[in-house]
């Protein structure tokens, strides 16, 4: 097996090195990759969507269909992990061997986590809301806000988190996020535009079509945010407890 692997990896390396000779010079502003499509995006996205961050504009609007599937992929992963790992019943309290690190109730850790978590959530919301103008957006914000819950459940334990946030709620919200995304797209159909054509929202929102695109993007970013937040919690809860949902790490 090792020999096969070595052969495959060396062959791959050699083939890619051969291909390298033929590529345009690194960093050339006139290379095809930088001129054909990307020039259009850079020159027109501000005018057409009024979003200064090109990445957000392309991600959420020009290629919004990709992003919808990306959100669905995350949702799908959450469901798959849950289906594979989840165990039926919790083990009885007395069967669980408390891990050594869990014995001391660390007051410093808990207090710090309690202080940091709200800050993280606030920052996550900022990243979400300011994604049009700076790096960030629904996905990054969602991961940060998911991480704040993960932090809490590491400092305390998973049961504390799950007693406040039921599993059913987690799954409900993670589906809801994708539904918000696909729903915004589907309402465009009802308004007479193509799927995910946010400019048709201008009839409802009473703004110009360009502004409507900007608002539509914010809407779908919120959907992505919700899904990612809850799927990150769900992934952590499943993987850290081995599907038992007891104490976590």
């Amino acid at each position: 097996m090792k020999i096969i692997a070595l052969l495959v990896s060396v062959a791959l390396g050699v083939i890619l090195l051969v291909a390298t000779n033929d590529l345009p010079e690194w960093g050339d502003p006139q290379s095809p990759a930088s001129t054909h499509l990307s020039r259009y995006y850079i020159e027109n996205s501000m005018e057409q969507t009024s979003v200064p961050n090109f990445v957000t504009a392309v991600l959420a609007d020009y290629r919004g269909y990709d992003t919808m599937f990306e959100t669905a992929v995350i949702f799908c992963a959450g469901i798959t992990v849950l289906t594979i790992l989840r165990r039926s019943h919790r083990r009885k309290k007395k069967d669980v061997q408390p891990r050594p690190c869990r014995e001391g109730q660390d007051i410093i850790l808990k207090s710090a986590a309690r202080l940091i978590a709200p800050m993280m959530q606030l920052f996550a919301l900022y990243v979400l809301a300011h994604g049009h103008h700076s790096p960030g957006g629904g996905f990054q914000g969602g991961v940060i806000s998911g991480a704040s819950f993960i932090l809490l459940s590491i400092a305390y334990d998973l049961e504390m988190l799950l007693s406040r946030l039921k599993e059913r709620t987690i799954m409900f919200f993670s589906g809801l996020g994708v539904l918000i995304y696909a729903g915004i797209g589907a309402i465009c159909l009802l308004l007479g535009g193509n799927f995910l054509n946010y400019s048709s929202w201008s009839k409802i929102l009473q703004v110009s079509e360009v502004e409507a695109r900007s608002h539509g993007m914010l809407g779908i970013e919120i959907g992505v945010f919700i899904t990612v937040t809850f799927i990150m919690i769900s992934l952590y809860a499943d993987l850290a407890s081995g599907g038992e949902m007891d104490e976590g790490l």
Partner: protein
Amino acid sequence: MIQSQLPILIIAIPLLMALAISLFGRKSDILCFYLLVLGMAATFAAALGTLSQVLSTGESIHYYLGGWSAPHGIELVIDHLSSMVLCMISGVALLVGVYSKRTVPAEVPFRTEHEKIPQRVPNYYTLYSLLIAGLLAITATGDAFNLYVSLEIAALASYGLLALGQGRAYFATFKYLIMGTIGASFYLLGVGYLYIKTGSLNMGDLQGILAQAAMQHSTSITIAFAMIMVGIWVKMAFFPLHGWLPNAYTLAPNTSSCLIAPLMTKVSVYMMIRLMFSVFSANYVFVTLGWQNLVVPMAAVAIIFGSISALGQKNLKRMLTYIIIAEVGYMVGGAWLGNANGYIGAVYHILADGMMTLCVFMALGAIIYKTGDSSLESMRGIFRKMPITAAIFVLGGFAMIGIPPTCGFFSKWYLVTGAYEAGQWFFLGALLFSSLINAIIFFRIIETGFFPDFNREKESGHHEGKVAMAEAPLSMLLPMVITALSLLLIGLYSKDIINGLIRPSIPPGLL
């Protein structure tokens, strides 16, 4: 209005239905089933709608998502070829959906340790619907990168569906996951090389740029093509890269294998054909590169390997998985023959093989559901116990052998003609050889099925007439009968399908 929005409905309905099942189906399992069947029926109707639209106008439909025109936004392209595959996918999804009414509650919630796992059935149906959404999105898309994302969603859902089998299924699925990720990553790398050379991701746009003379002889484009092909071959389990398939499909729950076995490999073949002829061109693949003399014999080896391995299997389900590997060889070989007859054979075989794989897997699933066993011995006396199921199994077997009124005959006819025209004698021989092996396999099963177990009868002193009928329930029989009829119909109307649907999609440059 709805007419012009049909292409997106095909993809949006299963996606929204997955969410609906996940959000509202948690209360009762049977509600999930009805939601799924409803969604699949609506999808099938939408797919038929686009098919009739394509047939009546004779032109492909372009649907611009977000209202952005072609190279800047993502577009869906539905032409003759993709509308046919869309109908097949949604049709199979509907049939398996109906079929799953009894099988899913029987095999999904319980595990080997006999504990009931909460929410298993709604999750299963959610993944089912997401898988179908992914496969339909692969088929409809006109964007090379979007294909990757759709591929991944279909792959992730299929890992979930396959892993729910018996204990050993997890390890098999892990291997599948590793191989699947390698395949998808190779595809992504190939698209990256195409992007760096052309600056575009839209398939139609790419084809236009790649037709330039400078691109035709570029090394990195050749390597991009090789990467993409290797990636897809891993996904479809083409011969030297097939290692993950038999275990993953054999150990999976029956409903999952009924769904995934007919669809996953065929959609990968469709992807290969789409990329060969709609991103690159027939001229580039067969004249500039001229790799057909390498790939077609490889396909012949795949056919021979698959057939011989199938002959050696005791477990019927495992035997069928090896036949799938052989069938992949048929389609890859046909597509790479480089002439019109080979292309027709390969495309027609996507449809025909999808339906016949479904037919035999569903019949076998019904037998397993009743007898709890998938060895050859479980077939003993099956004609007496489950006459309809057995008849359907035999019909599927006839189609796989290629006996005339069934569809299997016509695809083989075109493949053999194409191989003859291209002078690929080894491939032609492999086709005939595998028909022979399939005949041996299925007649052996039929023989076992016709004769009751004499030894057991002697022991228990039963008479022949006393064997009780134990036919599968109606929810399983109905889709099986429809599938079996479709095998005959696709065969009988083969001329119309080929002239109406496949011939208009023959790419320019194939003779």
